[in-house]
């Protein structure tokens, strides 16, 4: 049981947890948290692969590390955008839900454009 295997299993389980949370938890904020856990699992998988590819005196393959750093920043930006959308939705409607409940033709037509 090397570090690669232990943390590889950890990464896989984090991915599974994130997927489950993203699918089942009804509140959007919890979905975003689950997405972050999912992302951390994927990045850990990269890290495990990098560790497996340690060579030439470097403890972890630099290319997956660079990919993960890029990925972490992109994931943060995604979280920020999602939360901004969520907060705006909450400010306009007082509730935060993804449910497509709005009846399509009952209400007044949205303004043109």
């Amino acid at each position, binding site marked *: 049981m090397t570090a690669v295997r232990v943390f590889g299993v950890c990464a896989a389980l984090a*991915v599974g947890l994130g*997927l489950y949370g*993203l*699918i*089942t938890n009804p509140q*959007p904020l919890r*979905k*975003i948290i689950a*997405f972050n856990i*999912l*992302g951390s699992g*994927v990045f850990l*998988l*990269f890290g495990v*692969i990098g560790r*497996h*590819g340690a060579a030439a005196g470097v403890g972890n393959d630099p*290319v*997956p590390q660079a*990919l993960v750093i*890029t*990925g972490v920043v*992109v994931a943060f*930006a*995604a979280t920020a*955008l*999602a939360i901004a*959308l*969520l907060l*705006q*939705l909450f400010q*306009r*409607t007082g509730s935060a*839900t*993804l449910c*497509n409940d*709005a009846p*399509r*033709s009952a209400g007044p*037509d*949205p*303004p*043109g*454009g």
Partner: protein
Amino acid sequence: MPPPSPTLDATTSAGFLLVLSTVVPIAGVLLAFVLGGRYARSVASAVIPLGVTVTVAILIALPHSDGVIVYLLGAWPPPLGIALRADGLSAVMLAATAAVICAVAAFAAADFSAATGDTRTPFAFWILLLAIWAALNTIFLAGDLFTLYIALELLTFAAVPLVSLDGQAETLRAAMRYLLFALLGSVLYLLGTALLYALHGTLDVVLLSRRVSAEPAVLIAAALMTTGLLAKTALFPLHLWLPPAHAGAPSAASAILSGLVVKGSFFVIVRLWFDVMAGLPSFVAMQLLGALGAAAIVLGSIVALRQERLKLLIAYSTVAQIGYLFLMFPLALGAGKIESGGALAGGLVQAISHATAKAAMFMSAGSIYATLGQDRIAGLGGIGRILPISVLAFALSGLALMGLSPGAAYLAKALLLQAAAERGQWWWALVLQAGGFFTAAYVLLVLTYAMAPATEQVTLKKAVPRAGELAALALALCSLLLGLAPWRAYLPIPNGDVLDSLRLGAVAKMLIPLLGGAVLAVLLGRLELPFRISPSWNAMLAPVSLVRRASLASSALVERCDNVLRQWPTACICLLSLAAAFAAAMRIAF
């Protein structure tokens, strides 16, 4: 023209044009960001011609460069560095993107100028438009899987705010759903990328194509990446986000979202299967993709016929047309490997035909919406007189989608039918023909209402600029004439008279789908017909109304299925099941 194997360590002479394709729109984004909302439109109008020039230069340079242009970024060859590669596929997609962006910019110029003092929407719209252009160009040219991932994220981040640009609660919700589902798709794609790197130590497309073999991890990666990209492309049953997002966005944005943004992730799927994993797929897996496409065509069209709002109808039409794009995969599978031939050409021509025609459709719908202040199909009466150009543009784009010759859709259908005949997979030919009937159905539905006389007094909310209507018309005409473009120089169209047989029999060929479409529209569309039927006909039509009630019930059932599928948990479960089914299907052949 068989594509030559691209060289890896040689930047070809026209290579820098590839860099400019990405750099020019990005420079536009940065400049517009600094100068602010007042000058955003001016920056865009300066940058767009430059970008078009670069695209035209690439189109001209490609045939002289043996069909492939390569550029090594930083002069580092893969696997360490990143290469940009343009082949025929990239070139035609670049051209289509440039054309649609031009037309949409002309259409949106009046809506998103800072003249009214509002600087938020111009600032957002023009920057997002340029960013989408930069992202798409990078997708078409990048030769590295991780660069493709970043370009896909750029595309998503630029597309999502366009959906919620008007700030209504409905569109905010649609934007959130789009963002979260697209992020799920990207994460699955990234997961697959990790597995591929683990096995082969590179993410370069060409290097991977030489190294991949059918190991379990590769099959899992392929399943994950394909399903993630399918989520971003909104193929049935993963289309939950598309209808509200495309219908809720401003019309110029809907044109870009339907026409171009979904083609980005589609292109990555094509790259993945035709370049990276050409030797891997199994018959069952490709048939699965095609089956999903067929289901998309049927379900999307039926639900489109049941819509009461024009923009929702067009959005569901997009769901159906996306299904067409995936019919190319089962037809491209030759003796155990995917071959680039007529099916590939057909699929790409179909993508471009849809891009141009759907953008024109959304633009003309936008003019109608702005003029009437609402877009209920039942309330469209009389619009034919007020906005003849827009209705004509809608009709032409509808005809283009149906496959009127010499449109691109006609060429695509001919290529795909030919491929189906070659492979002996006659069932896809049936699907293709049926799709034509369905498309005709909802186009005819809208046109009937648009051409009918006004039932009530039509109040004009806003005067729509002529330039916008003309832009829509120009794009629709373009889509209708694209069959005549020099495709052979860029796409692997098989020799033979694919297009030459179109002139005489073409009109006759159109009549059958039109008639069939009319029947379907009457049977499945739930709106009342806009004209009265005299009582003597009523007696004869009694059995028809029985059939109509039965078919309406079945189409209502289909719509209810669609509503169930578009719930978040259901869609995500479909996503994961699809990934599992795909992986299993690929395992079967080995």
